[in-house]
């Protein structure tokens, strides 16, 4: 190893965790650009800096996005990665694959790319790492033949993603995969042709465990919940008790509203459903004994995003409860209304949450025709600086309809 050209990458092949360095080396064995990547990366480890330039705009016919252009900042040293673009391929909802499809992707990337991929990108796409401008179109054409379309990039709708939901999970309160697929299909134009002030992300988790981290990183989150009471199977409760689960300590105590009572003598668990905030904790702890209620649907939240520029935002409630049923018209209509308002009101590079914060929830709610609800806030405002609509003020009747308390 002493005279290896890649001492840093060699070092990164060691250890129990599967190695990306090994993956790169495998690809480098047959692909010049993978080798170029390897050598440039080795240099990065030596110099402690990246060697990529800002991407120019590259793409495929008929699309405004789906490709991230990437160029080496030192093509003289690493000419094989002078161009090293990424193709974002829209994953199937829930990231399920049959091996045929997966092998087709491999074959295409064997032919046109570096042989390197990300399964998946942080947004959820299949990321095909590294190809030339010339290869973009033929690669896409073959992907299309294999049934795969591009994902989103730029100031467009980004590829929606969802948890496994009803496909593999007993907690699912709506069909997250169906909704994800339907929204993706319904909004192909928004996904493929950037035409907004900035990116827009949709994610859906079929229960409050939020296994796709929707609430933290999507402009529009759909998170499953129910409106009636969770369902307790007392026989199963008794089994858990018999197996030695400390139901009072591990299930009732951490309940945020203390609305579960365990009767130790009869090994009976009861819930005060009105006080339950549907946090999933007790269900997670006793999945065989407790299940979500029967009247299922989702909470809709908006505004989540990463810290840049003003602050991180966590999505917040705008619809406490919505039934989520095919053909998902209510969700789609709401999205269209939101986009219309956002597109009209947002500054350049302003995410939905930032626009709402700047313009105020009252303007947003009015535009998307939603009523204010206390579920939208942790707490009401602590300042007296609120606005009145012109029609709430008049010179003869001082008390407006909305706020008079007679």
């Amino acid at each position: 190893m002493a005279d290896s050209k890649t001492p840093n990458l060699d070092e990164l092949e060691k250890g129990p965790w599967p190695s990306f360095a090994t993956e790169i080396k495998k690809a480098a064995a047959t692909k010049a650009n993978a080798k170029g990547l390897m050598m440039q990366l080795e240099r990065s480890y030596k110099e402690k800096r990246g060697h990529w330039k800002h991407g120019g705009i590259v793409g495929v016919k008929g699309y405004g996005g789906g490709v991230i252009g990437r160029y080496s900042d030192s093509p003289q040293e690493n000419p094989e990665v002078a161009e090293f673009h990424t193709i974002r391929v829209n994953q199937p909802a829930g990231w399920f694959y049959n091996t045929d499809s997966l092998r087709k992707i491999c074959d295409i990337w064997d032919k046109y790319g570096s042989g390197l991929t990300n399964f998946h990108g942080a947004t959820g796409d299949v990321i095909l790492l590294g190809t030339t401008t010339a290869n973009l179109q033929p690669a896409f054409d073959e992907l299309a033949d294999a049934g795969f379309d591009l994902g989103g990039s730029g100031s467009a709708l980004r590829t929606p993603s969802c948890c496994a939901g009803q496909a593999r999970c007993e907690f699912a309160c709506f069909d997250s995969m169906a909704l994800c697929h339907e929204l993706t299909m319904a909004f192909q134009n928004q996904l493929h042709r950037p035409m907004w002030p900035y990116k827009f992300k949709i994610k859906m988790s079929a229960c409050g465990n939020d296994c796709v981290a929707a609430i933290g990183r999507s402009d529009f989150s759909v998170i499953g919940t129910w409106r009636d009471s969770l369902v307790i199977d007392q026989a199963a409760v008794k089994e858990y008790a018999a197996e030695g689960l400390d139901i009072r300590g591990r299930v009732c105590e951490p309940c945020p509203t203390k609305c579960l009572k365990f009767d130790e003598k009869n090994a009976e668990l009861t819930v005060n459903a009105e006080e339950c905030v549907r946090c999933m904790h007790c269900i997670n702890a006793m999945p065989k004994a407790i299940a979500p209620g029967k009247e299922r649907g989702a909470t809709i939240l908006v505004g989540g995003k990463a810290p840049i520029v003003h602050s991180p935002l966590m999505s917040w409630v705008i619809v406490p409860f919505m039934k989520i049923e095919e053909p998902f018209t209510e969700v789609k209509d709401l999205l269209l209304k939101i986009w219309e308002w956002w597109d009209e009101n947002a500054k350049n590079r302003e995410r939905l949450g930032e626009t709402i914060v700047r313009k105020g929830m009252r303007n947003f709610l009015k535009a998307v025709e939603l009523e204010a609800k206390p579920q939208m806030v942790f707490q009401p405002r602590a300042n007296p600086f609120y606005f009145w609509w012109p029609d709430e003020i008049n010179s003869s009747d001082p008390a407006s309809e909305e706020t008079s308390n007679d």
Partner: protein
Amino acid sequence: MPRTDFGPPKYTEMLPPVIQENYGKWKYHEIPQPGVLKHVSETGAALYTVRIGSPRLLSIDFLRNICDLADKYCGGYLRFTSRHNVEFLLSEAQNVDPLLAELAAQGLPVGGTGNSISNIVHTQGWVHCHTPATDASAVVKSVMDDLTGYFTSMTLPAKCRVALACCINMCGAVHCSDIAIVGIHRKPPKVDHEMFAKVSEIPNVVAACPTLAIKPNPKTKSVDINEERCMYCGNCYTMSPALDIVDPENDGVAIFVGGKVSNARSGPMFSRLAIPYLPNNPPRWPEVTDAVRKLVEVWAANAHPGERYGEWINRIGWERFFKLTDLPFTDKHIDDFTYAAPTFRSTTNFKF
């Protein structure tokens, strides 16, 4: 040169002997009955305090009367509390009952201790200030008339601090009171351009507007107001009398709840909007007295023992508060000011 900067009288001159002797030595206290405190010292000495409600706006007749009482029962010493009540300081246990009897005869309410509603900390209103959106003294009088029973007893779950400010400058600790009554305007100021040009400085006024609603108007040598951006704070009016914001038809009060300042159990909390608007209805403000009573009663009926207003709401959630009080929740309740985003409900955990 006149004498200046000599400062207030030293407090030590103002303390009755029992305090001078036991300063820093108090061991514990009891509340033998509402409005009466008994502090006991390490030395065994006891100090009795009798607290009476005060209108705060006092004529010198009132002051001379309480001086008479203090001379008679307290060796000539008395104090006022941070909530503007009067406290008689007695070193003789046997003086307590006669004092109480005389106070009763004069119609002065004794109370405000323990789990009561003490005096309403309040402001000038139409008696002395130039920016009020409502009166102070009359509203306070009307509300306290309705709540005197809670002043003279100690039956509530915890202390309940009521405060009133006649405009959103919020003189007092109104922004962190259990129940806060605040005067609000609801229309942008009307600019008197002629007067403005004479008496006001454009840059100061422009800078005073928190929402950047004010733009200079070089033609009129005055300013224009973008009415859509104005949230009626009156800050510009404080800078310039030419921006009159008073409007009898639309001014009124808002009610905020759930604030506290003590660190007992939970830390201090701000009061938060419960009722965006009630009309000014002099002389008795019945809408306000009704609303306050109802707010007190719902809390009293539902809080756990020891729970302050805000602690109760934090336990049950604001969505429950609006349900229990049957108050409408409106777009005005949703913050859109400086620290709005952290108040948005960023979880699916809520009650229906």
